[in-house]
Structures are given as structure tokens and as C-alpha cells.
């Protein structure tokens, strides 16, 4: 049963990921990304990372994809060309694809990660354990993250200001 759910969710996420790459319209791409994230959130639930699945849906599906959709609508891109597969870019893409598929194949054939069945409880499964980790071992990173968010907020405000030549500069 668990295997069946894993297969369904992984095929679903892979199909949606391919949809992101192949979709002609950026809106369709964003929608495919949303579905792919939903599939990955399902996989997180299967891995007993309930909190992370919730945060993924909240942050990615709720905020990031919505932001993408807003920007697509703001820039008002008409259709957009589909990807054309020629030139130097195509060669680079093919080489990269071959390398990556080879690596994937090696991992599948020879990779033994030496892990048995899943062990006990992971932090995502219990909010208490999770917050204990955040406020003891990872207290400094939490603070640094706070500063990072503050700085990025300031950066976005500065970037999105319309630059107009001032009257008194003349």
C-alpha cells in the first residue's frame, strides 16, 4: 500500500516537473509547479515529516507560486515562444543530460546507500523535538535566518522603487 502511494506520488511529481519544463505558457508552468509541490508534500507525509509537508504547502504553494503568478500577470507575457532546441544551447543541454542520466544510472545500479528500514522518529514527526532542535542546537542559524529575511525585505523594497530623476537634481 505504501509502495503504491509512493509510486503514484512520484510519477505524479515527475510528470508535473516535466510539465514545468515543457509548458509553453508561464502560467501553465506555474500551475504544474504547484501540482509538483503538492506531490512532494505527499512524499514528505510518507516520510513522516508532517510539519515540513505543511510548511512546504504553506510557503511554496501558498507564497512562492502565488508570487510567480502575480509577476507573470504583472509582466503580461503573451504566450511566449516554446523552447527551440538548436545551437550551442542544445549541445550543452544534451551533454548535461547525458552526464546526469549516466550519473543517475550509476546510482541506480551500483549505489548502495546502506540504509535499512527507516529508524524511529525523525524530528519532523514531532513538533516538540523539532522546536527543541531549533532552539538549542540551531539557535544561531535561526537568528541568521531572521537577519537574512530582514535584509532581503529591505533589498526588495529598494529594488522595486521606481527610479525617477529628481527635479532638484537638475
Amino acid at each position: 500500500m505504501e509502495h503504491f502511494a509512493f509510486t503514484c506520488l512520484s510519477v505524479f511529481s515527475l510528470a508535473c516537473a516535466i510539465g514545468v519544463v515543457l509548458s509553453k505558457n508561464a502560467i501553465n508552468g506555474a500551475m504544474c509547479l504547484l501540482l509538483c509541490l503538492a506531490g512532494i508534500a505527499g512524499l514528505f507525509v510518507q516520510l513522516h515529516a508532517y510539519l515540513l509537508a505543511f510548511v512546504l504547502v504553506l510557503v511554496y504553494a501558498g507564497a512562492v507560486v502565488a508570487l510567480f503568478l502575480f509577476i507573470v500577470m504583472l509582466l503580461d507575457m503573451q504566450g511566449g515562444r516554446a523552447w527551440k532546441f538548436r545551437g550551442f544551447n542544445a549541445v550543452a543541454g544534451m551533454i548535461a543530460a547525458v552526464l546526469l542520466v549516466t550519473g543517475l544510472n550509476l546510482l541506480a545500479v551500483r549505489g548502495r546507500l546502506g540504509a535499512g528500514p527507516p529508524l524511529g522518529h525523525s524530528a519532523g514527526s514531532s513538533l516538540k523535538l523539532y522546536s527543541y532542535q531549533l532552539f538549542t542546537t540551531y539557535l544561531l542559524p535561526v537568528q541568521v535566518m531572521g537577519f537574512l529575511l530582514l535584509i532581503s525585505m529591505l533589498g526588495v523594497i529598494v529594488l522595486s522603487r521606481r527610479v525617477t530623476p529628481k527635479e532638484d537634481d537638475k
Partner: protein
Amino acid sequence: MTPSLEAYVMLSAALFVIGFLGVLVRKNTLVIYMCLELMLVAATLALVAFSRFNGTEDGDVFVFFILTVAAAEVAVGLAIIVALFRVRQTVQVDQLDSLKH
């Protein structure tokens, strides 16, 4: 019977490859950005899987930080794209060639 760690890592690698190919072949800056996000999520999937199968919580905590940084990164990146669009009136990378030799 639960799926093995290898299956999760394979899935994560496959998602990463798809995102990477998207970055290489697409021309629209916004779609390239979406593919970057896809790669980031693929990496988090591997972290969560490793964390679960090794019984530690460090991977999960790192995914939490990755999600935070991704949110900040998306905000800044989209602001840059909008600023770029205001100046150049396009987001197609083959038309943004001022720095090209």
C-alpha cells in the same frame, strides 16, 4: 513494505535533472526561475529521506532553513526580474545580451 532510501534518492535526482534541463533549454527568465525552485525542492526531498532513514533530525531542520532561504530568494529574484523588465521591456534571455561578447 516501505519504499527504500534508494527510491527516494533516485526520485530526487530525477527531479533535479528535470529542473536542470529546464534551466538549460528554456528562454523565459520566469520559467528558468521556476526550474531553479524545482531543483531546490528536489534537494530538500533527498535531505528529508536521508533524515528519516538515519533516524536523525538534522536533515529536517536543514530543510526548514532551506525553505526560509528559498522564500527570501524568490522575493529578491522576482524583484530583480521586474526591475529588469522595466528597463528592457523583455524577460527573454536571448534578448538580454548586453554582457555578451
